[in-house]
């Protein structure tokens, strides 16, 4: 074992393997779903704009639908694995809960004043809320997608979202919120680059460990 490898092995585990694998599969699935979804949206826009065709996936409506209805299995299957892991490993209990209002307010205030507290492996209150929120968003995007795909078989679900046309709006809104999250998420990684490596290797680099 090389000295660097042994140091790496001794470094504390920030993200367990299951979280890292499901995170990156989810990132790929969301990317495919969003880009193909934009192409599908363009065939019959709800609002007065279309997405630039060059940014979309699938080339035409039929192709985009093929991507969308293939990647949905990746998104949902991976999501189920992640949720089961989170519940049974104690990941949610230990790392996400509780989200306390006072702590959240303090953290938001800090963030607004440019003081980002970040300790690798520990989620601050804003992160907890954001990550729980994005899990809920993906659940909403999947449920509204089901209502659009099967408005007759799942008509109770569709009715809950205002019918077929309403479910399209919900699906769009959930997508938009999800994209906003991704923009913020990536921006935070750029601001605190030391968070990136642990999402790949699971462990912090040397410099970060000394900080910790």
């Amino acid at each position, binding site marked *: 074992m090389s000295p660097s490898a042994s140091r790496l092995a001794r470094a504390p585990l920030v993200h367990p393997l299951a979280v890292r694998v499901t995170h990156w599969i989810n990132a790929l699935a969301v990317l495919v779903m969003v880009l193909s979804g934009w192409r599908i949206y363009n065939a019959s826009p709800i609002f007065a704009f279309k997405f630039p065709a060059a940014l979309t996936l699938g*080339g035409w409506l039929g192709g985009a639908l093929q991507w969308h209805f293939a990647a949905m299995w990746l998104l949902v299957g991976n999501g189920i694995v992640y949720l089961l892991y989170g519940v049974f490993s104690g990941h949610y209990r230990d790392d996400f809960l509780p989200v306390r209002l006072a702590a959240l307010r303090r953290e938001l205030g800090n963030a607004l004043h440019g003081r980002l507290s970040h300790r690798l492996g520990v989620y601050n209150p804003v992160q907890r809320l954001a990550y729980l929120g994005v899990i809920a968003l993906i659940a909403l995007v999947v449920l509204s997608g089901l209502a659009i795909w099967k408005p007759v078989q799942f008509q109770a679900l569709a009715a809950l979202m205002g019918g077929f046309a309403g479910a399209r709006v919900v699906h769009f809104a959930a997508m938009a919120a999800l994209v906003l999250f991704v923009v913020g998420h990536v921006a935070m990684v750029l601001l605190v680059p030391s968070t990136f490596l642990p999402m790949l290797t699971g462990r912090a680099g040397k410099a970060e460990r000394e900080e910790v």
Partner: protein
Amino acid sequence: MRSSSRSVPLAVALLFLVVPLVAQEAPAPGMAAKEQPAMRTDEPMPTGMKRDGMTKGEVRRAAAKKAAQMKEAMEKEAQAMPARKSAR
């Protein structure tokens, strides 16, 4: 009889007007009941379902190809089922 004498030339004039029209529209003997509209087959499809470059005439070609592909197997399949001539 004055009225009928007036209507004879009128009827003849009408006949000259109508006969060519009817003759043009009458289907050729042996043709199917359907009439093909003048579809501009080289134009791109107007539907949002199309892929770039699809033309209206492609559907006819695809239908002919599909019919040819399925013909033999479908006839064989149908022969296995005896025809019933029930009273309707």
